[in-house]
């Protein structure tokens, strides 16, 4: 062992320093941050209607927040803690713009995740695209979110309404030769999106199969009058474009007035807890719908690992929450998709890389998705989930049938 001299010490230290520098330089070059990201933290912004008429959807935001808490408890994403900032926009577009500006300009978030509602997202889309801030996995099924050429910073998540509508139309054409179709539809963009996709699926020559379209306003107390119109139109196939409360009313009323058409219900209302149980399980039998997620209360998934994990998560991080509320199911699935994207970003946490990673998910199986349904994106495909499977209500469970129907673009 050599004697500790001044020279030795200096040489040793400088060698050490050089070695350290050599080790550190490449990783320093890799670490890249935009606003909202650092060595210790990732800031994510979110807006949700926690108050007002659409406050029921607030469950989604609360779930996403709880998922991030769970991730932080487990050590964060690549060692960084997630700081999830969620504001109330009351489902009001002007408020949404105000809150998103606050997120971007004051809180300086890396990205805006899962903002809810077609009107709110429409209002903030231009701003976020001008500022080049990701508007990632928006919580609406409108068909206009996957347009990377015009809006490279906006990406959807769930299957879009128009695609789903056209899937029903094709199923009707293939299975019901003498279909006379009655449509009940919410009179707004959401209803029209479904209906336009449905008409497209039927094709021009088959549009005459639609014998009655009855609309309702969200302010209508009931849809009883519309259901009577539909029954008397002689329709034998019923396409039901309604949100959960009205779906339950329609199912109940159809049973009361003894109208038994082939009943197609939009995915928006595919919930046992919020639709079929209140409407009556018996009256709901045989209803057909397109599904992409597992219903957590469906006994057939009771042992599926993601449902088991979800139940444990709900018990630990959201005690007291109403587990029948589908928002918790949806929120868990979409928040985990974000976590996957951020994991893939590694140490390059720039907004550009976030979009790049989000647009290169191939075959990712987010929790709660039906077996065989995967998330696929590419630089030209900004529609993450484009597969559904048809199912029918049987007992207190969805009986899936046929193969996975995909509408993958490019």
């Amino acid at each position, binding site marked *: 062992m050599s004697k500790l001299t001044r020279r030795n010490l200096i040489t040793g230290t400088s060698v050490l320093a050089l070695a350290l520098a050599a080790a550190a330089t490449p990783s320093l070059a890799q670490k890249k941050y935009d606003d909202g990201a650092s060595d210790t933290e990732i800031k994510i912004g979110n807006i949700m209607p926690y*108050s007002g008429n659409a406050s029921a959807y607030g469950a989604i935001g609360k779930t996403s927040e709880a998922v991030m808490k769970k991730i932080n408890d487990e050590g964060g994403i690549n060692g960084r803690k997630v700081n999830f900032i969620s504001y109330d926009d009351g489902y009001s577009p002007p408020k949404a713009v105000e809150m998103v500006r606050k997120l971007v300009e004051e809180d300086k978030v890396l990205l805006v995740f899962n903002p809810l509602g077609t009107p709110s997202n429409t209002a903030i889309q231009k701003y976020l695209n001008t500022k080049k801030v990701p508007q990632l996995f928006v919580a609406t099924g409108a068909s206009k979110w996957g347009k990377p050429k015009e809006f490279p910073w906006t990406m959807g998540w769930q299957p879009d309404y128009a695609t789903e509508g056209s899937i029903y139309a094709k199923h009707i054409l293939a299975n019901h030769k003498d279909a006379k179709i009655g449509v009940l539809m919410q009179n707004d963009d959401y209803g029209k999106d479904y209906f336009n996709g449905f008409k497209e699926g039927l094709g021009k020559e088959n549009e005459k199969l639609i014998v009655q379209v009855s609309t309702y306003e969200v302010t209508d107390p009931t849809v009883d*009058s519309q259901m009577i119109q539909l029954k*008397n139109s002689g329709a034998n196939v019923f396409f039901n474009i309604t949100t959960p409360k009205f779906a339950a009313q329609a199912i109940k009323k159809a049973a009361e007035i003894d109208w038994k058409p082939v009943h197609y219900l939009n995915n928006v209302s595919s919930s046992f807890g919020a639709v079929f149980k209140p409407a009556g399980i018996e009256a709901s039998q045989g209803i057909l719908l397109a599904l992409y997620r597992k219903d957590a209360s469906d006994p057939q998934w009771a042992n599926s690992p993601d449902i088991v994990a979800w139940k444990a998560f709900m018990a630990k991080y959201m005690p007291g929450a109403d587990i029948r509320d589908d928002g918790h199911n949806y929120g868990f699935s979409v928040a985990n998709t974000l976590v996957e994207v951020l994991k893939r970003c590694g140490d390059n946490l720039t907004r550009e890389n976030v979009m790049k990673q989000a647009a290169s998910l191939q075959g990712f199986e987010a929790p709660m998705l039906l077996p065989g349904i995967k998330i696929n994106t590419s630089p030209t495909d900004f529609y993450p989930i484009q597969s559904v499977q048809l199912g029918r209500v049987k007992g207190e469970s969805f009986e899936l049938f046929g193969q996975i129907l995909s509408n993958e673009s490019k």
Partner: protein
Amino acid sequence: MEQLIQQVASGLANGAIYACLALALVMIFVSTDHINFAQGELAMFSAFLCWQFMDWGLTFWLALPVVAFISFLVGVSVERVILRPLHNAPVLSIVVVFIGLLAIFHSMAGSIWGHTIKQFPSPFPNVHFAGSGYIGPHQIGMVVVTLLLLLALFAFFRYTPIGLAMRAAAQNPVSARLVGIRVDMMLALGWGLAAAVGAVAGALVAPVVFLEPNMMASILLYGFAGALVGGISSPGGAVAGGFIVGILENLVAYFGNLLEKSTGIYVVGNGEKLMVALIIVITVLTLKPSGLFGHVTVKRV
């Protein structure tokens, strides 16, 4: 023709919903001279309470009187605690308080019971009878209960000394006080009774529209329309007004749809039924400001 009967029957059933709430609105107006914007939310809150008691094992007919009584107490305390200090405040301040109450009860129900719709069992037996395809047992029950409630209120105001005292306190507080009526008590009593009537309305409406915090938001609008058409100062008028609005909106949609089917021209339809119903309300009020059955109040100046 078949459909016309069905639409009228369904309108009658919806009308019963509006009539019930209109009755509660009239109660407050007759006894305090105010229109309570929070009436719908109070009724919704009572319906949730009723559901809660039923969830704990009470039957509907046991839960309803309990909840009506609790609502009565809530109504009285709202008047005593919140509105008493505003006795001499301008009408606008009171309107703001009502809107505040609306928001408070709405959020409270949301945070206590959640936003997922709940099934509220109908208290009436689900039997099939001649014509049950047109109007269900619950709907008939609702119409009957509304009429009974009306009868009870009519008798109360017309034939009991306390009812007379309440009317006097609302219409002319100064003179009422001079003849020895405790005006403050009467106002609180009016609030309590209105809340109790609202509880009955909520419990009857919930089986039809499903129980959730927003359930009364749109019904309140129709309830107002009904109360105003019939005359906000007359319980009988309010009930009649509720039925008129209910039937009218269905007929507008029905005839609009018929016209579109036969001529291909779209004039009115489901989207415009509320608008047309409200135009009729405005017309009635322009021609007869006190409503169809309301009495004209003459104020000496």
